[in-house]
């Protein structure tokens, strides 16, 4: 139950933040509305500000707000709800009253938190645009532009379709909800462990770095990944954040050959791009290795990298 609620919140930040019921995070106090349980004595809050009165033509009983809190997945979902509540055909949607209701609702939001309600406000501006257009006299020559109302209805229809499809998907027999994999253990540790390698505790720290630095799945995936970039980024981050700074040369891991060096280099570039790592200017310092080298090398200045976070 608790886990489930957490997931819902994580998954629906917009909807969950928009309206908060007191102690929304405390699952003890919230009865699941779709269990049919009644929630009594609930004062309504929108972003910490308690709402004294609800928009007149949108009286929603307090129980419904708990449903709203948990069930609405965005402005389209909310609009669908309004259409349904007004008991009209989607295609015959009376855009003016619906827009009024939507805007009245949105206007209850505390201005301080408007930036959080971006998706809802975007929809509000679309509705206002449509409303304006409907109120203006029609141009005599038909324009090629698409009718914004028709477009909105199309989007609502498409969303409604997906919503129903997602419910159908959820009704399928699902692994780890309706049926379960059998789990068994491997043969005795002593038998299998014979060749168990020993692990470095740095694996743990690297995994945490990787968890935090993980790109948003927008990065291009590289097919052949003998030296995973994410691992290298994590490992270099660990070394630099622990020691403060390192020479560039030391950070290029040479144990995996050319590819290892290249991946290390790309990893460093990525970290510099994310402003986690900076370059320390060390132009005049003498580097121990340059002493034994010939003059040609001595003009290459040793490069030191610094952890900025």
């Amino acid at each position: 139950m608790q886990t489930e609620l957490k997931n819902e919140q994580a998954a629906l930040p917009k909807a969950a933040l928009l309206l908060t019921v007191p102690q929304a995070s405390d699952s003890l106090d919230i009865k699941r509305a779709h269990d049919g349980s009644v929630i009594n004595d609930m004062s309504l809050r929108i972003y910490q500000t308690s709402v004294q009165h609800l928009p007149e033509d949108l009286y929603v009983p307090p129980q419904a707000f708990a449903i709203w809190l948990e069930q609405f997945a965005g402005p389209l979902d909310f609009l669908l709800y309004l259409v349904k509540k007004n008991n009209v055909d989607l295609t015959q949607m009376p855009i003016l009253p619906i827009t009024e209701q939507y805007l009245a609702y949105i206007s209850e939001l505390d201005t301080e938190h408007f930036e959080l309600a971006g998706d809802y406000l975007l929809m509000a501006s679309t509705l206002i645009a449509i409303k304006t257009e409907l109120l203006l006299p029609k141009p005599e020559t038909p324009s090629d532009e698409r009718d914004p109302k028709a477009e909105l209805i199309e989007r609502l229809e498409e969303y409604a379709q997906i919503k129903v499809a997602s419910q159908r998907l959820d009704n399928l027999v699902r692994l780890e909800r309706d049926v379960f994999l059998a789990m068994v253990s491997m043969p005795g540790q002593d038998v299998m462990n014979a060749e168990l390698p020993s692990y470095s505790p740095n694996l743990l720290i690297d995994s945490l770095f990787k968890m935090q630095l993980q790109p948003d799945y927008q990065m291009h995936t590289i097919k052949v990944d003998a030296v995973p970039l994410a691992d290298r980024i994590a490992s270099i981050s660990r070394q630099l954040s622990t020691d403060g700074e390192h020479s560039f040369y030391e950070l290029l891991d040479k144990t995996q050959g050319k590819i290892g060096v290249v991946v290390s280099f790309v990893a460093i570039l990525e970290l510099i791009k994310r402003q986690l790592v900076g370059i320390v200017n060390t132009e005049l310092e003498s580097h121990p290795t340059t002493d034994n080298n010939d003059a040609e090398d001595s003009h290459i200045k040793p490069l030191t990298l610094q952890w900025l976070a």
Partner: protein
Amino acid sequence: MTDTDNTKQDYDKPPSLSSALLSLTDEQRQHLEDLSKHIEVLLHASEAPLTATVLRKHLSLTAKELTQALALLRQRLDMGVLSLHETASGYRLQIANNYSALIQRVFPQRQERLSQALLETLSVIAYKQPVTRSDIEHVRGVTLSSNILRQLFDKGWIEEKGYKETLGRPALLHTTPQFLDAFGLSELSELPPMPDISAIKAMS
């Protein structure tokens, strides 16, 4: 390949089982028994379902041996609590359906629930694939939280494959065979039908 023939018979005993095994000598039967045990071991030890091809390769089996050994395995599993299930990506062992209620009662934490936002996102990908992130945002009217995508990637239900040839070349998202496995589908065409628009209009 015979392994696709009995897709629909996961929980039934294959009809020709006994006749297929009747004419065997004791020695042949013992050999098959061993093979069926090896299959069971590999299915238990594997992190993912195993296809007929992989099983045959690792255990050096002929197609006929595999069929017979799987039949024997099903016969043996019938006496216990597991069932052999064939999914889009191969065979796996699962706890027989009639014990689900017991598991749900004793280990409620094993029951994974999915939020509406996640299900909607997954549905857009499943029904409209390939899609970009902004396609999903357009359909749902909500900015896509990276948490939802992360969960879907984490479960191995979606993957990035190819790019849309448009500004920024956004990655295209597809569902994976694991998605089919998890929802008990053998191919995408088995997805529940999308409701048609007229039904939607009537509904509202």
